[in-house]
C-alpha cells in the first residue's frame, strides 16, 4: 500500500484529462461571471494589438505618401488611444483572472481541509502527515497557476492569433497566404520541441526529486555514513545523481538552443517572403509599402502566442497530476459513521457502561477482549496495567476515534454509536499524556476558541488547577504567545495548561491519561492537587501512573493483555496479593517512599 502512495508524488500524467477537468471546472462554477467577463475582455484586448500595424499601414499609404500632417497626427493619436485602452484592459484582465484563480483555490483548499479533518483517526495513524500537508499546500497551489494563467490565457492566445489572421486576410489575401506558408513548419517545429523538452523536463524533475530525497535521507543518516566509512562512496553516488540532473538540463539546453534560433529563422523566412513576393507586387503597383510594413509587423506578432500556447502544456500537466492526487484524497471515505437519526444525549449524568467490548486495530489482533465495566455518575475509575495491557485503546473507543468490533459502550444508557460523534465528544474531555499545544496564546490553548468559554472561565479554570501562578508571571500573561508545540514551556506547565483546558470545557465525563514524565517535586504537588480538583464531581476514567490518583479512585481496574484481571479499591486489591500487588510494587511503591521523604 505504501508502495503505491509514495508513487503518487511522482505522477506526471497527461496534460488533459476530461474527467478531472470537469471536476475541476466545478470549482470555477461559482465564479462564472468572472470567466465570462475575462473572456469578453480577452476578445477586445486581443484585437487592439493587431489593430496597430493596420493603423500604421493607413498612416503610410494614406497620409505619409500624400504628405498629410494632420492625418498622420490623427493616426498617432489613434495609436496612442488604442495603446492606452489596451493597457487598461490588460490590467483589469490580469487582475480578474488572478482573482478568479485565487478564489477558486481558496474554495478548494477549504473543501480539502474540511474533508481531511473529518477523516477518521485511523486514517491519520496510517498516513504520513507530510503527505496530507502537501495536498493542501503545494498541490492546491499548482492548480492556481492553471486557473489563473492557464485556461484563460489559452483563450487570449487563440484570440490574438485569430485577430492577426483576420487583419492580414482583410488587408491582402494573397500576401497572407504567402507569408503564412511558413506556419506549418512553425507549428510542427513547436510541437516537436515541446515533445522533446517535455521528456527532458520530466527527467530534470525526476533527478531533482532524487537529488532531494537523497540529500534528505543522507542528512538524517549522516551518522551511519560516517560510522561505516562511506563518505567517499556516498559522494560518488551523490555525484552520479548530480551529474544525471546536470545532463538532463544540458539536454534541454540543446533543444532550447535549436528552438529559439529556429523560430527566428522561420520568422525571417516569412519576412523574406514578404519582401520577395510583396516587393514584386509593389513594383507592379498591386500593393503599397504600408502593406509590407504591416505584414512585417504581423509576422513578428504572430510567433509569441504560438510559443506561449505550447508553454501552457507544462502548466496543464502539473495541474492535472496535482488534481489527480487531490481528488484521490477527496474520494477517501474513511469516516467513523454518524448515525442517520442520532439520539440526543442531552444533559449527561455520566454513567458509562462497557458490555462485552472487544476491539482490534486490524482484523485479528485483539487488544481488548470482552471487557465489561460499569461506572456510575461521578465515580473515578483508575485503570492500571503494564504497557500493552490495552489502556490507551479505552480512550480511542470511548471517544469513537475507533469503533469497537463487538459489544457495546453506553453513556447514560445510550449506545454511543447512536449518538452524533461531535455531541459525544463535547460531553467528554480528554487529557492526553503528550500535551498538544497549538500555535496561538495561552488563552486560546485553554479556551480552544470555543465561543461558550469566556475569559473569566479561562482565568477561573487556570486558577483552579494552579496554572495561574506561572501564567501571571509571563510578560503578556494569558495573551503570551505559545510557540510551535509550546516549545518555551516546561513539561509541567504544559500539563497544567491541558488540565485547565479540560476544566474550562466543564465536561461531564473526563478521560485522563496521566503523563509518566518526571517533574520537580513542587510541580508534582501542583499537578496532584490539580488532578484532584479536576476529577471532583465528574465521571472520570484515569489511566493512572500516580499513587495518589489510584488511592483516591473509587475503583481500580487492573488490565492485563486486553482483559480485566482484577478490580476493587486500593486496600482490597493489595490484600489480594495478586497482579495489582505486583504492579504496585513495580510502579507505585517508590512514589510512596519518595512522598514519605
Amino acid at each position, binding site marked *: 500500500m505504501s508502495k503505491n502512495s509514495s508513487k503518487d508524488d511522482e505522477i506526471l500524467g497527461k496534460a488533459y484529462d476530461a474527467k478531472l477537468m470537469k471536476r475541476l471546472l466545478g470549482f470555477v462554477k461559482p465564479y462564472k461571471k468572472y470567466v465570462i467577463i475575462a473572456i469578453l475582455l480577452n476578445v477586445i484586448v486581443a484585437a487592439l494589438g493587431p489593430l496597430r500595424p493596420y493603423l500604421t499601414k493607413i498612416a503610410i499609404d494614406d497620409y505619409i505618401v500624400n504628405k498629410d500632417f494632420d492625418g498622420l497626427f490623427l493616426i498617432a493619436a489613434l495609436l496612442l488611444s488604442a495603446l492606452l485602452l489596451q493597457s487598461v484592459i490588460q490590467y483589469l484582465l490580469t487582475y480578474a483572472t*488572478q482573482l478568479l484563480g485565487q478564489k477558486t483555490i*481558496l474554495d478548494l483548499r*477549504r473543501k480539502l481541509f474540511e474533508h481531511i479533518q473529518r477523516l477518521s483517526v485511523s486514517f491519520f495513524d496510517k498516513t504520513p502527515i507530510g503527505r496530507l500537508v502537501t495536498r493542501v499546500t503545494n498541490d492546491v497551489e499548482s492548480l492556481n497557476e492553471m486557473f489563473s494563467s492557464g485556461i484563460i490565457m489559452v483563450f487570449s492566445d487563440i484570440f490574438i492569433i485569430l485577430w492577426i489572421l483576420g487583419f492580414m486576410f482583410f488587408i491582402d489575401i494573397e500576401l497572407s497566404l504567402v507569408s503564412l506558408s511558413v506556419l506549418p513548419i512553425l507549428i510542427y517545429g513547436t510541437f516537436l520541441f515541446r515533445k522533446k523538452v517535455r521528456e527532458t523536463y520530466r527527467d530534470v524533475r525526476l533527478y531533482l526529486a532524487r537529488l532531494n530525497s537523497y540529500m534528505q535521507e543522507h542528512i538524517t543518516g549522516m551518522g551511519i555514513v560516517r*560510522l*561505516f566509512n562511506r563518505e567517499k562512496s556516498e559522494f560518488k553516488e551523490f555525484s552520479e545523481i548530480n551529474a544525471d540532473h*546536470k545532463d538532463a538540463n544540458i539536454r534541454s539546453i540543446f533543444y532550447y538552443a535549436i528552438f529559439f534560433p529556429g523560430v527566428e529563422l522561420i520568422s525571417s523566412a516569412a519576412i523574406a517572403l514578404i519582401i520577395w513576393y510583396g516587393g514584386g507586387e509593389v513594383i507592379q503597383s498591386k500593393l503599397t*509599402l504600408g502593406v509590407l510594413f504591416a505584414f512585417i509587423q504581423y509576422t513578428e506578432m504572430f510567433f509569441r502566442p504560438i510559443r506561449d500556447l505550447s508553454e501552457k502544456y507544462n502548466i496543464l500537466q502539473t495541474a492535472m497530476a496535482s488534481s489527480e492526487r487531490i481528488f484521490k484524497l477527496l474520494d477517501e471515505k474513511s469516516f467513523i459513521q454518524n448515525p442517520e437519526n442520532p439520539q440526543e444525549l442531552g444533559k449527561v449524568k455520566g454513567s458509562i457502561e462497557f458490555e462485552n467490548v472487544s476491539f482490534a486495530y486490524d482484523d485479528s489482533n485483539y487488544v481488548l477482549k470482552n471487557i465489561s465495566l460499569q461506572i456510575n455518575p461521578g465515580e473515578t475509575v483508575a485503570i492500571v496495567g*503494564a504497557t500493552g495491557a490495552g489502556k490507551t485503546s479505552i480512550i480511542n473507543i470511548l471517544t469513537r476515534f475507533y469503533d469497537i468490533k463487538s459489544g457495546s459502550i453506553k453513556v447514560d444508557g445510550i449506545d454511543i454509536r447512536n449518538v452524533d460523534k461531535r455531541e459525544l465528544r463535547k460531553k467528554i474531555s480528554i487529557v492526553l499524556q503528550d500535551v498538544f499545544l497549538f500555535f496561538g496564546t495561552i488563552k486560546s490553548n485553554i479556551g*480552544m476558541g470555543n465561543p461558550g468559554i469566556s475569559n473569566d472561565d479561562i482565568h477561573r479554570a487556570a486558577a483552579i488547577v494552579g496554572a495561574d501562578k506561572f501564567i501571571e508571571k509571563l510578560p503578556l500573561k494569558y495573551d503570551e504567545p505559545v510557540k510551535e508545540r509550546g516549545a518555551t514551556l516546561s513539561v509541567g506547565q504544559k500539563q497544567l495548561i491541558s488540565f485547565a483546558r479540560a476544566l474550562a470545557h466543564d465536561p461531564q465525563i473526563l478521560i485522563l491519561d496521566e503523563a509518566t514524565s518526571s517533574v520537580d517535586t513542587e510541580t508534582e504537588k501542583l499537578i496532584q492537587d490539580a488532578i484532584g480538583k479536576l476529577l471532583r464531581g465528574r465521571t472520570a476514567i484515569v489511566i493512572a501512573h500516580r499513587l495518589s490518583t489510584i488511592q483516591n479512585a473509587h475503583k481500580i481496574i487492573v488490565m492485563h493483555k486486553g482483559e480485566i484481571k482484577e478490580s476493587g479499591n486500593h486496600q482490597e486489591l493489595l490484600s489480594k496479593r495478586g497482579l495489582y500487588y505486583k504492579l504496585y510494587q513495580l510502579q507505585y511503591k517508590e512514589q510512596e517512599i519518595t512522598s514519605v521523604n
Partner: protein
Amino acid sequence: MKNLRDLSKYFKKHKKMLYWGITFIIISNAFSVYVPVIIKDALNSLQSKIDYDVLVKYALLIVGSTIIAGIFRFFIRQTIIVVSREVEYDLRGDFWDHIQKLPLRFFQNYSTGNIMAHATNDISAVRMFVGPAVMYSIDTAIKFVVAVTIMSIISIKVTMIALLPLPFLSFLVYFVGKKIHERFTLIQEKFSDLTSKAQENFSGIRVVKSYVSEDRELESFMALSKEYLQRNMRLVKLQAFFQPILFLITGLSVIITIWFGGIEVINGQLLIGDVTALVIYLGILIWPMIAFGWVVNIIQQAEASMKRLNKIFSEPFEISDSDSTDHSITTLNGDIEFRNASFKYGENLHEVISNVNLKIPRGTKLAVMGNTGSGKTTFINFIPRLYDVTAGEVLIDGINIKNIPVSVLRSNIGYVPQEAFLFSDSIYKNITYGKPGVSEEKVMEASEISRFSKDVEQFPEGYQTLVGERGITLSGGQKQRASLARALVIDPKILILDDSFSAVDTHTEEEILTNLKSYMAGRTSIIVSHRVSTVKDLDKILVLENGKIAEQGTHDELLEFNGVYAGIYRKQLLEQEIEQLG
C-alpha cells in the same frame, strides 16, 4: 558582489568555454543586427524602380544572415548556459562534499529543510547569475551599442526622441522587480504559516476532534488562506500593472517613431524603409532594456544566496585525520582505555561525561547501564569518534585514537545505533553498507545471527526487497535487526550496541544474544541496555550516573553491592512475573 567573487574559481575552470561564448555573442549579433538594414534597403529600393532580381537578393540576404546569426546563437547557449549548469554541478558537489564533512553537531542546529533549501534554491539562484545573467548582460550591451549606432546613422533626431521613454523601462523593471521580490517573500512567509497550520492540525487531530474544534480550526486555517490570498493579490496588482506599463512605454517609442519618422518622410528627409528599420530596431532594443533591470535583480538575489552558501562553506570540518595521524596503523586489536575522559557540548555547559577512567581489554564483553541522560550514548560515541573527548584521552591498543586514521578506526567498529536507520535501498545493500563487496555467505550468516533472515524470506523479493520510501516499511524491530546485521557483516574488532533491541521482543532478544555469544568471542563488545536479562551474563557491567561511573563489576558482584543495579534487577524480576501472568 563580494560573495559572488568566490565564484571565480568555478569560472576559471570553464574559462575557455566562456570566452568562446562571448565571441559567439559578438558574431551572432553582428549578423542579426544587420537584418533590419537589409529590410530597410529592400523597402527603400522599392521606392525607386528596381529589378525583380534585387528583391530575391535581399530576401536571400535576410534568410542567410538569420541562419548565420542563429547558428552562433545555438553555440551561445551551448557554451554559456552549459557552463552555468557545469558550475551548478561543481558548486552543488562542493556543497555536499562540505556537508558530509561537517560535525554531527551541525545537523542538530541546522534543520534538514534548511540545508536542502541551500542546496536547491540558493544554488539555482547562483546558477541564474552564472548563466542567463551573464549571457544577457553581454548580449544586451552589444545589441544596445550596435542598434543605437545604426539607428543614429539612419536618423539621429528620430532616434533620440524615440529612445527617450526607454531608460524608464530599465528603472521600472529594476524597481518593480525589487518590489515583486519583496511581495513574493511576504507570500512565501504566509505560505509557510499555512503549511505549519496544516501540519499542526493534522498532527494534533486527536485533540482537535476530542474538543470538537474542527470548525474553529477550519476557520483559522481559512483566515490564513485568506491572508495568503490577499498577499497574492497585492503581488498581482503589481504584476498586472507591470505588463501593460511595459507595453505602454515600448508602444510609445514606436508611435513616436512612426509620427516623427512620418513627418521626416513627408519632409523628404527619410524614406519609408528607414522608418521601418527604426521600428524593427526598437523591437530589438526593448528586450535588452527589460533584461537590464532583470539582470540587476538576478545579481542581487544571487549575491544573497551566495552569502548564505559561503556561511555553510565557512563552517569548520569535523574530526578527521591530522598531521599527527599515524598512517602505518592498519589494524586494531581492540584494547580500549579511557583516561580522565570528560566531555561537554559547549564551553559554558556542564560536563556530560566527567573524568571517566576505564580499561576494556580486548575480547571483553562490557555492559553499560544507566538512566536516560546518564551519558551512556555520549560515552560510547567517543570510540568511533562521533565526538571527541573535550578533556582526557581515549586510547585503543595504547594509541590515542586521535592518531589512528579515522577510516581504520571506524572500519574496525561495528556500531548499532539506538535509532535504527536504513537507507531506502535493497535490504542486501543496507546490510552490506559498510563492506559492499562482502560475500553472500557473510550476509546470510549475519542475518542469521541477528534473527533477521526469517523475516527476509517472507519479503516479496528476499534480500533484493527495497525498504523505505519506495519499498516496504519495516517494523521497528526489523529495522534494529537489519541494523545489527549491517554491523556484524563488517567483521569488526569492536562491536558497539546502543540499546539496539528496544523494539525487539524479549524472546527474540534472547535468541539473538545466544547467537551473538560465539560471534563476540575475541571481539571487544560494548552493549548499552536497559534490560538486566541482556547484560547479566556479560564480563563486566558498568552503571553510569550523571556522566560518572557509579558502579562496576559482574552481575553477582553488583547484586551483592545492592545499589542501583540491584534495584533495577528486582524491578525487572517483578515485571517478568507480571508478564508471565494470564
